């Protein structure tokens, strides 16, 4: 049950076992948690077809504390119907990923983005393939979704996610 205790973001954020805790802002921690939570509400059909055991890959900037924090967060966790493990990969080394978190001013993305859901750090992030965008409203971290973009990807987004998201016009 301790695994399920991830639960609330608050408790997660208060978890003292995370090494990167001190180097990350509360917002970044929330974003890391949101990234992980996105994997629960998005399905990648291609993963189901794959013959080898595969995991959901989240690509973030590898050099950051955010990477570490997220890596620790998803360690030994399984999500979705297929109970896939979640793997955090560095943007620089990753051959491909299902979820890609980009920040403004980061290095140019070289990986193939066929079915990759790109999560932008903010609504202002100038990234052409962004499907989900974080934003803060009344002190609460929320996210926006580009339905056209995400629908163009070969992924299935849960209506529950859509219900919480602001739809990008």
């Amino acid at each position, binding site marked *: *049950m301790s*695994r*399920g*205790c*991830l*639960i*609330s*973001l*608050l*408790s997660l954020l208060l978890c003292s076992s995370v090494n990167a805790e001190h180097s990350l802002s509360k917002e970044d921690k929330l974003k890391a948690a*949101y990234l992980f*939570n996105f994997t*629960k*509400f998005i399905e990648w059909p291609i993963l189901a077809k794959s013959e080898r055991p595969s995991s959901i890959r989240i690509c973030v900037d590898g050099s950051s504390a955010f990477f570490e924090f997220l890596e620790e967060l998803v360690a030994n966790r399984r*999500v979705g119907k297929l*109970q896939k493990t979640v793997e955090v990969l560095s943007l620089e080394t990753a051959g491909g990923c299902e979820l890609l978190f980009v920040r403004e001013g980061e290095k140019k993305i070289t990986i193939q983005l066929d079915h990759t859901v790109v999560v932008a750090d903010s609504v202002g992030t100038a990234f052409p393939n962004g499907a989900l965008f974080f934003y803060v409203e009344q002190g609460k971290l*929320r996210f926006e979704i580009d339905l056209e973009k995400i629908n163009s990807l070969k992924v299935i987004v*849960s209506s*529950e*996610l859509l*219900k*919480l998201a602001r739809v990008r016009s």
Partner: protein
Amino acid sequence: MTILQKNPYKNRVSFFYKQLFAVMGINILPLLIMSGLLYSNFINDYQNNLIEDMNSKISLLAATSRSALIFNDNEAGNVLLSSLKKYKATRYVQIYNTDMELFAEYKRVGQIIDVPVEDYKNNAFFKNENVYLSQRIMMGDDYLGVIVLSADTKSLNVQKNNYLLISSSVLFASLIMAFILNWQLQKRLTAPILELIDLVGYIAENKSYHKRLDTHRGDEIGELILGVNTMLDTIETHERQLFQRANYDELTQLPNRHLLMERLSHGIHAAKRSKTEIALLFLDLDRFKIINDSLGHRIGDELLVQVAAKLSNTLRKSDSISRWGGDEFVILLENVEGVFHIEHIIKKIILELCRPMVVEDHLLHVSTSIGVARFPKDGKDSLSLLKHADISMYKAKEKGLGKHEYFERGMLNDSVQRLTMEMQVHKALENKDFFLVYQPQVAVDSECIVGFETLIRWNLNGRFVPLTEFLPVIEEVGLMYELSLWILAQACKQNKMWQRAGFSPVTVAVNLSASFIMHPDCVENIQSTLTDTGLAPKYLEIELTENTFINSRITAVSVLRTLQAIGINIAIDDFGTGYSCMSYLKDLPIGTLKIDGSFITGLGQSQANEGIVQSIITLGKSLDMMIVAECVETEQQRSILQSMQCDIIQGYLFSPPLIVDDAASYLAKYSPQKS
């Protein structure tokens, strides 16, 4: 007489309603159980549906609130929960996170959270007319929180009331329908039984058995009705037979005395109303006893049947004829217009009965004596009329055969006297108060005694009762045979005693009635008397009247021939006054003719009388008979008779009837000299 039994339990609940209520009771029980089960089932279903409905809602909410919990979006959670707003039963719904902190909530205005989240159980429960449910919110194996929901059960209560109403209505309608159907069914089933009860009641009340019930049923009730009908047939037949037996004479089929009394009573009432007269004719056949005793009851009965038929044919249909008993008939004539009317009918009856009747080769002559009593003159009621008609009839009988007499008040005394005499006759016979006297019969030529005629005398309290007074009474009361036997025995015994005393033997003549001769034991009794007394038959002479042969000549001839064969002499007494024809004289074994005294008394007074006597003597002589003249009182009579060659003379000229001792003296004095 049938008495209608009163039922002490009557006026209680009828059989119909008892059965109806019993069946209804049996019907109500399963209906109540079914209605209860139906109601309970409805409520359970509705309750289950309500819980299921709430469960589905809470499940949906739990599923859809997961993302809100995960992304800590309590606003989204609140929005989700408020979707239950349109379900009016919802009181509140809450989502708690894993720390049991309230995450989202919807609460209807005015509702309070009355059950803390910790008190919720795994299953739904009811409390304070509310239902409470909870469900854990899971994401895979991850426990995200818990959702609780409370809803009021107003709809359940409304449904309960509805179902109660429906069940009650169905129950009530079923009861009404069951009642109507059962009522109809019971009515149909009990209708024939009620008809039977009505029939039995009608029969018990009216004593009438003619009603029947129609039935085309093939079941047990049909059989019961058929059984009752058959029973009624039998009862009706028995009733008819009983009525016939109670009211009609079995032999003649005429009404009996019971029915006569009813008709007479009715006739008197009618006569009172219409102020008309009625006449009651009391008939008694003359000499019937002789026929009955001599020829047997079968012949007597057949004769009565023929007489009844004759009477029926003679009278009008409106006249009522009944057999009173024995040889007595009573005729009731209503609306009598006068004596001439009664006379006309009496004449018709007498004329019709005078005609001889043939019964089994016997040519029988009967006549009837009739007594008449009239209403209102001779009696005001049935019994007095009957009594007076009866008395009149006896008076008529005293006058002779085939006579009739109207009632007169004076007859009542005669009747009393007659009753007294009947008792005295019985007593006299028991006490042997009768005694015999002997009147000598003397030969005309020698003037010697040749015999005695035995005559009976009755000394009643110092008075000699005339023969004409007591002999008819003796005949009527049926003692004649017994008395005749006594006379016969006495006479024979006395004659034998005289012979034993050394007197010259003479005959002793005994008068015997026709009924004695016709009696089946007549010959046997005469023979045994002779044997007992030791008298030789030739010293016994039997005197009969011509009427003896009227009723049945064949029997009389047979008896007389037997007696003659024994050696007994037969004499015809009172010859010349009877009704029968002369031809019998040559057929009958008669040895002596006794010329009636009335002819003798007239001798020397008219030529015609002498002619008759001469003719009788000539007739007798020609048939080789002895001629006896009785009641000879004068020498002139004796002289004439002698000149006419009469053989024997009897009368006061020689001697009155003598008592035994005087007779013995006479015998000693006038016996023929023994040669």
